[in-house]
């Protein structure tokens, strides 16, 4: 059994968790170009080595961050997202009403 050390729930079977993808900066969806949005949504580094990723503990609905080695399958460190995200990201409201595309 592979164990994931959850920052909230302690060590649990990894089957209780859902992989959420690489941690990366989200461009402002109301102002970025289609290409930038595609880059954010689809493209990735997909590295062989240490990656920083979002993970979800499904049972408790808790999202956190894990540093993991994608070759050795080792989980190096897990922590609460507040370590990286210490303020709320707001996208301005004025532009949200704008029609995107035709």
């Amino acid at each position, binding site marked *: *059994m*592979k164990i994931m050390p959850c920052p909230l729930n302690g060590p649990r079977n*990894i*089957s209780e968790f*859902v*992989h959420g993808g690489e941690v990366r900066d989200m461009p402002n969806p109301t102002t970025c170009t*289609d*290409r930038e949005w*595609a*880059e954010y949504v*689809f*493209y*990735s*580094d*997909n*590295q*062989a080595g240490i990656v920083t990723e979002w993970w979800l503990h499904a049972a408790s609905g808790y999202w956190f961050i894990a540093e993991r080695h*994608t*070759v*050795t*399958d080792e989980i190096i460190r897990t922590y609460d997202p507040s370590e990286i995200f210490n303020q709320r990201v707001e996208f301005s409201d004025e532009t949200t009403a704008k029609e995107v595309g035709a």
Partner: protein
Amino acid sequence: MPFSLLKYGLNNDYPFERDADLPAPSELKSSYDVVIIGGGGHGVATAYYLAKYHGITNVAVLEKGYLGGGNTARNTAVIRSNYLTSEGVKFYSESVNMFKELSNEFDFNIMYSERGQLTLAHTDATVRAFRQRAEVNKHFGGRTELIGPQEIKELVPTLNMNPAHMPVLAGLWHMDGATARHDAVAWGYAKGATQRGVELHQLTEVTDVIVENGKVTGVKTNRGTVQCGCAIQAVAGHSSLMAAKAGFRMPITTYPLQAMVTQPVKPFLDPLVSSSALHCYVQQTGRGEIVFGGGSDPYPLYNTRSTMELKESLLAHAIEMFPFMANLRLMRQWAGITDMTSDYSPIMGLSPVENYYLDAGWGTWGFKATPICGKTMAELVASGGKVPDLIAPFAMDRFDVFRQVNEMGATAASH
């Protein structure tokens, strides 16, 4: 034993060079017209068609391990064309047609075996989706029908018609479904390519891609640097890593895919059978072993380890479908690392680097595409970058314009 065979075996010069399927290893030249990175089925098929149809033979296939030792040797060899989109069905149908002729063409038996493939539906929604897939497949010349429980029972008498309390409502019966010996496919192409002058270099790892003014000019390897007129990357699970060496990112995530095989038993199962809800497919090989496969691992990894969790869940589902298999023993298990795209279609064609072509994003479904992929990639290269119509929908920049070719539903359960 015939006397000549004994004499042959005891001869000092045995094995004779002239009898070898592949030429002995040679030095790398300093430059080639075409460098193909990755000696899997796709790489050698591309080399073969470059030589055969376009007379381009100053070609090197560079393989870091051994011929076909990547996913080509690890797949469960399901060959079929019953996808969902017209782009997908057209492309894969062409590949199935080519597969049928390969043994003759190679004069080398790839053990192509047309058993038919049966996918089970357990919900009304799946039945509707199957109806659509049957129509699309027929429209492009494939043989697919929707069949009911009675016909399913006749085709596969050992099947439990109520696996995991999910009654079998209907089946997508794809008569073109087949299987073949995957190593033989790689060897057949490699043999045909090298006989025509292509060089296959095993144990040759590409460590860097040289790009000058936005154009590829060569590759660095563990055996030195080679110049090239153009290069193709066909490295499956390593696609993102190779693209990074060439300086760009890809819409790919690498996941392991596991499979396993039981001890051999008497023939009992002719068609390839898969269940859309149980995420499991089962087939019996010509030797009598039963091969199982299912969905990818739950998180990305560049590692071919096997896990108990996947074995347990996959086998639980397989036993639901064929309860008597609970008495069988597993013989082998393995995994490959697969280059998954989010729309379950490949990435073929041009890249952001000039003269650097992509054959990637084959995930869990690329073995069946080996012939058509080699043929169309060869066309692309020979024409200096004019993308053949058949593969135009699979260009990488489809993601930039949100024009995915969604084959998820038609791929997940049966590859």
